[in-house]
């Protein structure tokens, strides 16, 4: 086995880092565990900040450039924190045919944010997804992890206004 690098200390005392570390340990700190590790950071913290990327690079003995390259390549990884609520509008073909564009416009008209943006009060992030696989319920959105189907602009705005 190759010589073991000394592992960097956890970036903080937050217990969630132990989960991240467990993912890497389970994969023997192999470089191919990078994507799994980034998933576990995002699951635990909601996004990937610079400190976490540096930590992963040092732990898995990978160049930071490579870690950053992977983190930016995949759409699911977020480098900025999300708002308190997230609304993902599915823009798959079935949802497009059934009016997903109208949902995006309705949100923009009401909250003034485009997909990929967060409202100024950090309350709501709006995202789009390529297809959430709920074509039978088109147009579909995912609000804070819950999939809701057959939406109209008014339904959705009312739902988003009602959060909290």
């Amino acid at each position, binding site marked *: 086995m190759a010589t073991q690098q000394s592992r960097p200390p956890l970036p903080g005392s937050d217990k969630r880092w132990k989960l991240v570390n467990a993912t890497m340990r389970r994969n023997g700190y192999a470089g191919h*565990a990078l994507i799994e590790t980034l*998933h576990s950071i995002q699951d635990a913290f909601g996004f990937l900040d610079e400190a976490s990327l540096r930590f992963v690079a040092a732990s898995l003995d990978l160049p930071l450039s490579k870690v950053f390259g992977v983190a930016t390549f995949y759409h*699911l990884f977020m480098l900025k924190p999300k708002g308190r609520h997230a609304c993902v509008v599915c823009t798959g073909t079935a949802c497009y045919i059934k009016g997903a564009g109208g949902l995006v416009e309705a949100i923009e008209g009401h909250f003034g944010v485009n997909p990929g943006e967060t409202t100024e009060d950090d309350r709501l992030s709006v995202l789009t*997804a*390529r*297809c959430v696989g709920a*074509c039978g319920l*088109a147009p579909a959105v995912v609000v804070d992890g819950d999939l809701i189907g057959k939406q109209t602009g008014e339904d959705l705005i009312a739902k988003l206004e009602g959060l909290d």
Partner: protein
Amino acid sequence: MNLDDLAEKAEEFRAAEAGVEREVRVCMAASCQSSGALPVLEALTKACGEGDGTCRVKGVGCMGLCSAGPLVAVADRDCDLQGSVLYRDVSPSDAADIMASVCGAPVERLRCPTDLPFFARQQRIVLENSGVIDPDSFKGYVAVGGYSALIQALSEMTPADVLEEITASGLRGRGGGGYPTGLKWSTVAKMPADQKYVICNADEGDPGAFMDRAILESDPHRVLEGMAIAAYAVGASKGYVYVRAEYPLAVERVQTAIRKAKRSGFMGNNIGETQFSFEVEVRLGAGAFVCGEETALMASIEGLRGQPRPRPPYPAEAGLWGYPTLINNVETFANITPIIRNGGEWLASIGTETSKGTKVFALAGTIENTGLIEVPMGTTLRDIIEVIGGGIPDGKAFKAVQTGGPSGGCLPAEHLDIPVDYDSLKSLGTMMGSGGMIVMDETSDMVDVARYFMEFCMSESCGKCIPCRTGTQQMHCLLHAIARSQGTHKDLKLLEELCEVVQATSLCGLGQTAPNPVLSTLRYFRDEYERKLSGPT
């Protein structure tokens, strides 16, 4: 373990539930869960109570008619979906009525007839257990004959015998390419190597397709069993299921299935007390469409950016970490167990001359019955859309059907009578793809449809090769202009030229097929483009 031992075990599992006469099955696949299946299941379980044990409420996989969810089926224990009483749009307040009617007259106000063509015209092979068994129950899978194909292969067949059956079946890859499965397996089997891999491609990225999701959520053991048989045939000992992270329920069910299969000795070391060992792990995608391409998918498993590389060498020769790798789609693996159980000739008797067996399609768009269907290859588009799908709602006229996702094309009404198989679709400028079928009515603007798909390919291009990276962007600009009636005849000519260049020079399937939606809409709906043009011709 031999087949008799397994049959005994299955009998034992069945005997343990011999007292159960009637089952109330609640669809717990993602689509019905989104429509509120969980509270329905809870209400039914509560209404059922302890009872006398002759009735049981259980969560099952996808029943197909997603647009009518939550779906609940009441059936005799050994009855399939078609023989059951099906209820649609069920809410928790209906629980008492449903439970009261289990052995009596059905609740007519909720009833969804199962003799509708949507159900009656299907031939369920891949989906045979879907909507019938509890996907999280290992015992339930074994009780309906699960893992008997694996044990049969291990105890009674050589790897060469397995290859022969798969080749004889004429099965072709269900991921869209249609490459003969037997040939692919034989190539990997022939490679001399100490280490080989089997990968299940569950990175179902086509927008508008949800077949693989439903199969994994409804019958995960079936896919694992298919992978294990493949591993035995090609000499692999390690497998990966590469699933989109957007499918959390599918991920969870596959992980549960792996854990349970391992605990019972159907995964891991010395499967069925033989020399054969096979480990499976789940790997998550992270939202990159290009990872459906096999070389990009393998790069992603290796922890890299999911960028494709030139082929050859093909994965069969040098795949994951340079070792020979067999990579098939979810539905392909789901077809393996019935082939081993019934023989290759049996599958070859279904379908058309060049495309054997059945195909699962995800029907969506402006169509009456949205959902999942499985039909024999060679069924006509008209049968699928007008008869099974129930036609277009609100009295509108059919305009086009899109197959093959962003790599496919749109077909107009004049081609509705073609039989659906790999070669017929290809000859008309579209492709089978993984099985997404999106129906559009007269209100759809075909130029905008082409623009939509080009935008998709543009933002999903991995950026490695120039024709795809730059070409899709230029084509999108042109389509955007034309769709807004700001394009000229010269723009259209340029667009057509670009289509040819990108098709001929891109590195991988994403770029090579990106022009297809444009080319097919130009072929069948050219007048719609021309009406929007200005300037000299």
